[in-house]
Each structure stands twice: as structure tokens, then as C-alpha cells.
């Protein structure tokens, strides 16, 4: 032990003299900046000029699309095939009379998991119809289906392959890690470069984005198959193939199905962004409505997306259970996530459903008694058929071709009214200087602008490099330090420095708010089971909502722009800090707590001196995730006019200046990697410190 700790303490000593150097360099630079004003801004002349080559390339693509072999023999056929399939499914779904669609869904859900799921699924579909969004929903559903099927078709075999080959795993892992770090937005850029803007590129972006969990969880599931099961398979003389098909895949099924579920949710979370490059469907409705500031319509479509998320989530979870257990277990499946078990109203709700279900069962059994005896064996099928017919009949009465207008749930008009009321009445309440308007102005004028100005104009850019470098150095990793500085330099060299600083500033504000809210809330939740039970469903719900949908209600209150982005970021990104703080503290070893108690610590002392330090690795991990999520959201808020790198990407798309999108996209990736790697290194350092 002594020989182990010795080199560690020397390496710490090596790092210490670094701080005086940093501080004196900082002072020197700040002084220098006061004397030489040019030092503030990243030198324009250093721009490596990425923009033009990419725009050039894009023009070349447009001109050569019909002639060059790469397009004629590869991209075009691929694109055409994909387009054909998507249209086929879409047209089929649109052609199908809506009651038939509902019955089909009802029937398959009933088959998979019973009445509960069937009712939920048809209820969700019905809601989409009631929002007047049946067609858009079917378009989105078609695109989702195809993208998810292809993503699974690629991802599951890749996952199997990488479980069986160390080489493949070794090659795939860094790619998957990088894919997880890169914010959603960036996926769109290369796709647009080759495919332009249409349905196919949005499907491709969706597929690529949704691929990682399918690969990862398949591989993980297969690797986790216990060795004794494999040995038994070997002992009976199974071939490799038999082992895979009869043992490994079936035993990995729960994990694979979790991958399927995550793939679906990932695909759905990109749905609004995909609209940016022409996916159509619900995403398009949201996007267009937001641009025209029709908040009501945007909210309807946003809700429809959430409803679809719920539908697909529950459906795929049930499918997972179905394929694992291999039989429909009618009462086993709970509508609400299993994690919520034990929460009062959840149990109450589920028990109520149980009662309802039993009642229906009793009634159908009683009806079955009336059947003539030769038909008795078919009782279930007959009753179900009758039920469907009845269902169909009611729906047919109200109209087949399109969803009946009479059933429309007009929420957009009252919402719009509410929004204008809020704009009039909440914008500024009397002459008090309170209200959303002053709040927004305060944030923008007092915080965002000065911060962005501070980071870009006041602080010389080398100082930022130095600060980041020092943060990386502090974890004791030299390669990381060099990497971080080089990546930041590259952001400057692409001419995106000031936009990146703007984004960084907004992210910083969001993260600070998240931490200030999240850590106390997490601690509270770890102390009180009531609070824990109260917030768990809320956190789960916040994580199910596709990323973009957060913006809609926020815009209702604060209009579009950076403030909406900030608030959406906080809502979206606060989840992991709360969750991991709570988890970290709850996982602190009970015996350690007892010994703290034995020394007579007060509750506060116990918290601050024992629990928080021991939970530090978990909390750091939460902060890491929060930072990455906040960054992603700040960037996406570019769609509603929040300034910074996100807006650059959007405007690049809008102005047919793809080079600009590429520069901004590259800067996003670099910034994300820098922040991710540094915070990750800090989290690991905290973990090591806690272990010692």
C-alpha cells in the first residue's frame, strides 16, 4: 500500500507548481489585452477557410448528381429504394381507413399484452386524430417504422458481430462513444451534403442517430450471457451457430429488447429536427407553427409527438416482455413503468385497471356461457371478433375517410387565446416591473449579452484556452490537456470562436441553474421517500419527451430566442443531476453511515462530511450528463432563434450555405468533446478519490 501511494503523491506535487504559472500567465494576458486590443478576438486571418470548399463540394454535388458514378450507382439507387419503401408504408397507412388502423393496432396490442395495452394504444391513436393530426401522425409513423426497422436490421447483427469478435468491438466502441457525444444537430449536416433535403436524408439521419443503442445493448446482452450456460451448450456438442441461436440470442433477449425500445425513443427524439431537412409529418407541423408563432398548433403537434412517444414506448416494452416470456401475460404487464411500483397513485391506478379488466373478463365469460356448445372452444375469438366489429361499427358511423371533424379537440384556439392573454397580462404585470417580459429582458440584457461579450470581447481567447487546459491538466492527464487545447484552437481556426463562446456562455448559465436546483433536490429526494416518489414519475416523463418538444410550452411564455432555449435546457438537463445525486447518496454504504452516527455526527455533518463526498463520483457523472444535455438543448434552441452555433447551422441550411453549417457543426462537435472529456475525467478522478 505504501509503495503504491508514494508515486501518486509525487505526481500530485508535480502538478502543484502549475497553478502559479497559470495565474501569472493569465494576469500577463489580461494586461496584454488591455494594451493590445487585438488580443481579445480570435485573429480573423487565421481562419483556415473551411466554408468555401464545402460549398464548392455541395455545388459540385448538385451539378453531378445525375452524371457521376458515385451518385448514379450508389447514392441515387439507395435513395430511390428508401424513398420507395417509405412512400409505400406511408401511402398504405394513409390509404387505410382510420378505424381499420385503430382496430389493427388494438388487435395486435391485445395479442401482445392484453386489453390494457390495447386500450392505451387505441386511446393514443384516437388522441392524434382528435388533434386533427391523423395524416401527419401517419407520415411520422411511416418514417419512424422504416427508420427503426432499418436501424434494428443493421444494429442487431452488428451488435452480435461485435459481441463475438474483440476486433469489431474494439473498432466500434470509439465510434459509438463519439456518436453519443455528438449533439443531434450535427447528424443532419453530412446527410444533407450527399442527399439534399427530402424524406430520404431525414430517414438516414434518423437511422444513424438511433443505431447506437441497438448495437450496444445487443452486444452487451450477448456478452453478459453467463459462462455456465455457454459451457453447458458446449458440453452437449452445440455448434457455434446453435449456441448463438438457441442460447445466446434468447438469453440476451431482454437486453436486445431494451435496445429496441431505446432505438425507437432515439428515433422519435430526432423527429422535429428531421423536419428541418424535409421529413414532413408531425415534426414539420411543429417547426412551421413555431416559425409562424402559432403556439397552439405547435403545442398540439408537440403533444401528438409525446403521445406517439408514449404509445411506441409502451408498445415496445410490451413487445419485449412478450418476446421474452413468449406468451401474452394479461395481468403481468403494467401500463406505467415498473420502476414506479410502490408510488401511491400509480398502484391505485394499476389496481383500478386490474379491477376493470377482471370485470370485463367476468362479463365476457358470462356471455360465453350463452354460446351453443360446439362454438364454446372459440369463445375468446368470437367475443373478440364481436368486440372489434362493434368498435368498427361505431367508428364507421362517424366517418371513414378522414378523422371526423366533429371529434376534433380544438386545443390550439384556446391555447392561442391563452398565449395572447399571457402576452398581454403576464408580459408586464402592472407597473411593477415584474412579468415574463422584464424577466426575459433581464436575462438577455443583464446576463447573456454581457456573458457572451465577456467571453468573446473581454477575455482574450488565449485565456480561455489556458483555463480549459488547466482544468484538463488538473486531472493529471497530459494527452487530454494537449487534445483539449488543440480542439479549442481548431474552433477558432474555423472562424466560429465568438459563436462558440456565445453557446458556451448560455450552456454555462443553464448548467449553473441546473446544479443549483438539482443537487439540493437530489439530496432532498435521497432523504425523503415521499419526495422521491413524487419526482420519479416527473423525471421519467421529462426524459420521455422528445428533446425539441420542450421548447413549445416555454415559447408560450417567453417567446422565441435564447431565453426559451435556456429554460428548455434547464428542464431538459436538470434530470440527471437530480437522479444521480439521489442515487449516489442512497447508495452510500449503510455501515459507514452507522459509524458516522456512532461518533455523534449531526445530520448536517453526516451529509456534508460523509454522504456528499462518498456520492461525489455519482454526482459528477450527473453533472457531466447535465452539461452534455444542456449543450445539446442550447444548440437545438437555434431553431427558435437562440443565438450561437445552433443558429449558425440553421441559417446555413436556410441560406443554402452549407459550408457555414459544416463549420458550426464541427465547432459543436469539438466543443462537446472538450467539455465531455474534461468533465468525464473529473468524474473519474472523483471516483478514484472516493475509493482511496
Amino acid at each position, binding site marked *: 500500500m505504501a509503495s503504491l501511494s508514494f508515486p501518486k503523491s509525487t505526481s500530485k506535487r508535480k502538478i502543484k507548481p502549475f497553478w502559479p504559472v497559470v495565474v501569472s500567465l493569465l494576469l500577463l494576458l489580461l494586461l496584454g489585452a488591455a494594451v493590445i486590443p487585438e488580443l481579445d478576438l480570435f485573429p480573423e486571418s487565421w481562419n483556415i477557410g473551411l466554408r468555401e470548399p464545402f460549398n464548392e463540394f455541395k455545388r459540385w454535388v448538385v451539378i453531378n448528381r445525375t452524371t457521376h458514378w458515385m451518385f448514379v450507382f450508389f447514392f441515387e439507387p439507395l435513395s430511390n429504394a428508401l424513398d420507395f419503401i417509405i412512400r409505400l408504408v406511408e401511402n398504405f397507412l394513409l390509404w387505410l381507413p382510420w378505424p381499420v388502423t385503430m382496430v389493427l393496432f388494438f388487435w395486435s396490442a391485445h395479442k401482445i399484452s392484453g386489453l390494457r395495452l390495447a386500450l392505451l394504444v387505441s386511446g393514443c391513436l384516437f388522441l392524434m386524430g382528435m388533434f386533427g393530426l391523423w395524416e401527419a401522425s401517419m407520415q411520422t409513423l411511416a418514417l419512424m417504422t422504416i427508420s427503426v426497422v432499418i436501424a434494428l436490421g443493421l444494429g442487431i447483427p452488428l451488435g452480435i458481430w461485435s459481441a463475438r469478435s474483440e476486433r469489431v468491438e474494439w473498432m466500434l466502441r470509439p465510434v459509438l462513444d463519439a456518436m453519443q457525444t455528438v449533439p443531434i444537430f450535427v447528424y443532419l449536416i453530412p446527410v444533407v451534403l450527399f442527399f439534399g433535403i427530402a424524406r430520404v436524408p431525414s430517414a438516414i439521419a434518423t437511422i444513424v442517430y438511433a443505431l447506437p443503442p441497438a448495437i450496444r445493448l445487443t452486444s452487451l446482452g450477448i456478452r453478459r450471457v453467463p459462462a*455456465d450456460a455457454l*459451457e453447458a*451448450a*458446449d*458440453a*452437449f*456438442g452445440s455448434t457455434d451457430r446453435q449456441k448463438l441461436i*438457441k442460447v445466446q440470442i434468447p*438469453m440476451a433477449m431482454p437486453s436486445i429488447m431494451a435496445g429496441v425500445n431505446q432505438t425507437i425513443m432515439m428515433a422519435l427524439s430526432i423527429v422535429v429536427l428531421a423536419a428541418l431537412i424535409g421529413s414532413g409529418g408531425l415534426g414539420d407541423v411543429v417547426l412551421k407553427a413555431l416559425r409562424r408563432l402559432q403556439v397552439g398548433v405547435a403545442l398540439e403537434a408537440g403533444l401528438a409527438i409525446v403521445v406517439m412517444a408514449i404509445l411506441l414506448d409502451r408498445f415496445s416494452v410490451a413487445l419485449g416482455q412478450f418476446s421474452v416470456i413468449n406468451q401474452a401475460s394479461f395481468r403481468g404487464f403494467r401500463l406505467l413503468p415498473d420502476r414506479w411500483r410502490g408510488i401511491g397513485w400509480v398502484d391505485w391506478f394499476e389496481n383500478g385497471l386490474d379491477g376493470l379488466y377482471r370485470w370485463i373478463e367476468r362479463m365476457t365469460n358470462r356471455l360465453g356461457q350463452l354460446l351453443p356448445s360446439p362454438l364454446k372452444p372459440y369463445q375468446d375469438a368470437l367475443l373478440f371478433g364481436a368486440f372489434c366489429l362493434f368498435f368498427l361499427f361505431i367508428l364507421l358511423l362517424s366517418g371513414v375517410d378522414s378523422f371526423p371533424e366533429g371529434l376534433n379537440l380544438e386545443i390550439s384556439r384556446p391555447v392561442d387565446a391563452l398565449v395572447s392573454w399571457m402576452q398581454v397580462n403576464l408580459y408586464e404585470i402592472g407597473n411593477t416591473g415584474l412579468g415574463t417580459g422584464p424577466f426575459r429582458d433581464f436575462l438577455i440584457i443583464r446576463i447573456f449579452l454581457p456573458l457572451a461579450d465577456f467571453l468573446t470581447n473581454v477575455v482574450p481567447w488565449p485565456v480561455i484556452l489556458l483555463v480549459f487546459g488547466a482544468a484538463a491538466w488538473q486531472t493529471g492527464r497530459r494527452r487530454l490537456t494537449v487534445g483539449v487545447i488543440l480542439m479549442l484552437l481548431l474552433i477558432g481556426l474555423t472562424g466560429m470562436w465568438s459563436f462558440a463562446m456565445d453557446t458556451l456562455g448560455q450552456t454555462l448559465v443553464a448548467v449553473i441553474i441546473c446544479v443549483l436546483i438539482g443537487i439540493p433536490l437530489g439530496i432532498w429526494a435521497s432523504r425523503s421517500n415521499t419526495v422521491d416518489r413524487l419526482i420519479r414519475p416527473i423525471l421519467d416523463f421529462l426524459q420521455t419527451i422528445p428533446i425539441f418538444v420542450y421548447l413549445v410550452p416555454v415559447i408560450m411564455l417567453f417567446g422565441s430566442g435564447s431565453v426559451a432555449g435556456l429554460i428548455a435546457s434547464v428542464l431538459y438537463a436538470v434530470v440527471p443531476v437530480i437522479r444521480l445525486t439521489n442515487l449516489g447518496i442512497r447508495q452510500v454504504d449503510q455501515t459507514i453511515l452507522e459509524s458516522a452516527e456512532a461518533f455523534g455526527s449531526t445530520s448536517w455533518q453526516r451529509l456534508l462530511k460523509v454522504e456528499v463526498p462518498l456520492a461525489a463520483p455519482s454526482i459528477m457523472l450527473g453533472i457531466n450528463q447535465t452539461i452534455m444535455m444542456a449543450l445539446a438543448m442550447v444548440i437545438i434552441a437555434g431553431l427558435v432563434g437562440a443565438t450561437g452555433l445552433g443558429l449558425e447551422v440553421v441559417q446555413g441550411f436556410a441560406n443554402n450555405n452549407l459550408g457555414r453549417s459544416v463549420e458550426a457543426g464541427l465547432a459543436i462537435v469539438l466543443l462537446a468533446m472538450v467539455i465531455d472529456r474534461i468533465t468525464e475525467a473529473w468524474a473519474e478522478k472523483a471516483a478514484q478519490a472516493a475509493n482511496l
Partner: protein
Amino acid sequence: MKVQLKNIWKIFGPSPKHILNTIEASNSRADILADTGHVLAVRQVNLDIAAGEIFVVMGLSGSGKSTLIRCLSRLIEPTEGQVIINGRDVTTMNESQLRELRRHTVSMVFQRFGLFPHRRVIENVAYGLEIQGVPAAERRDKAQQILELVGLNGWGDHFPHELSGGMQQRVGLARALAVDPEILLCDEPFSALDPLIRRDMQNELLNLQQALQKTIIFITHDFLEALKIGDRIAIMKDGLIVQVGTPQEIITNPADEYVREFIQDVPRSRVLTAGSVMKAVSEIPGFSKNPGILTTTTLQDLIPLVAALDGPLAVEDETGSVVGIINREIVMMALAEQGATE
């Protein structure tokens, strides 16, 4: 001989072959681990196992039993030596020959059952048949029969986790028997079960063996279990076999201190038989035969008899002819030997 092991070695580590050539008889396992970082799991094992025999390998944890038994069907590849089953050299078999051997000739039962949790009991039992390509109906019938044989009638459609530990191991046994193997490898099959269930399972195995007459290689670290079911016992220590013999041979004549440790706690009266302690004579003049004392009668059953009668008693073999005599003194000496060696 059904199974022969010739000079089997297994060394775990980065370069086992190389290490093998440098090992000398005097090197202990701990030294080799300390010097080279290689684990000497099995060391120069030679065994001959006859058809229809229950051959028990017994030793402390880490003595290399599991490794040895896995070398037999090459689930672990031996570093050196030959395994010969039915006169064929297993160590030189190619993949498909080896697979055939595992499918039809050698079957295995595992300590932690190794059942497939996603398959129903009947599908677990039928697994071996399934991968041989036996048609579904046929393998279902066969699996059903075997389930009845191990006393699990009616449990076929359950999943393994719905069964108790003892029942799960019956499934494990059924799965191994379903392919009708000639050789059954059992790696501590009953160690995970509690004592009462374990005794049931031991009896069950002995009953099955009477009917099936397989060649069984059975691993245990429980000496009483070894005594109860083994026709012969091999005792392993640090990868080496230190003694092979029948239970009586081992008890009456332990090879070294290690073996003596094992037999210390054994209730000798329940293991030693009249045959193993009697004074052998072929003719006993002047004594009428005392019916009921066979060579296989345990001392425990003899004690009341010798306590009641002063004179020597005749011991008979299965055919009824007298092979030796026994008296109070002999019995007491045999029981006292335990104390004498301490």
C-alpha cells in the same frame, strides 16, 4: 477400460507449454505460481476407469477437480497428455469428431445446474437431442420419459426458476441422460443442495445407476458423499492424484497425511465392513455358521452381535461360503485405529 487418462497436465497462464518443460517433480504448485505466474491446475494425472463404474474424484477446493473433469471432453484443453475414451484418442480429434463425442458419448451435469433459463424444463431436457437434429415429436417423447425417470412428471412446462434447487438438478441430470450417453461427468452436482435433499439425490443416483449402468465420473469435496456412492475414489491435492482405491482401501490404508485428514471425521463403523476387517480363513472347524453376516455388513450392524456373543462369528460372501471370522476384539481394534493414528 472405458476411459483412460495418460499423463494429463493442465497449466493456466500465458505460455503453459514452455513452463511444462521446466517443471521438476520437486517444484510445488505455490513455487511455480510465485516464480512464473502460471497456475498448475492438473499435474501428471494417470487414471483408468472401467465401464459401469462410479469413479469419484475428491479433493479440497482448488485442487483441480473441475479442470480435470473438463479435460475429459476437452471443455478445457489439456496442456499435455492423452484422453482415451472407448479406445479412441480424444486429444487428437478434430472439431466435428469432438462434437459427435459430446453429443452421443459424454454428457455432463454441473454444480450450479447450468440450465437454460429461457427454456422450459422439457426443452432443457431435450436440448441435447435438439442439437443433434432429432425430430421434435420424438425428442419430446424421449424427454418426457426421462423426466418421469427422474421423478419430475408434470413439471415439463415450467421454467427452471420455478423449481426448487433439488428439482433443478434433477432437470440437469435428466438433460444429461436424455442423449443416452455412455459416460456421465458430474462436477459436484449435489454441492449446492441442502443436506437432506442431497441425500435423496445420492440415493436417486445410485438407483438410476443400478438400472442404467453408465460409467460415471463424479466430483465432490465431501468425503462422505464419495464413500457413499463411489466404487472407487481418487483423491486429489494441488493438481496431483495422491491415492486411488476403494473406500475401504482408503480408510484402512490412507496414503498420506492429507488423506488421513479426510478420513479423520468419518464414522468408521458406518464405512468399514466385515469383509475389510475380518481375519481371513477358508475353513472354520467346530463352528456352526452364523447366518446373516456378509462381507458387506458394516461394523455398525455388527456391534450388537459381537457384544452379545463371546465367540468368533463366521463371515460369508455372496455365494454363502465362509471366507473369514470376526470377533469382539477385531471389531474394537478396527474402530480404535482411528484413535491410534492420531
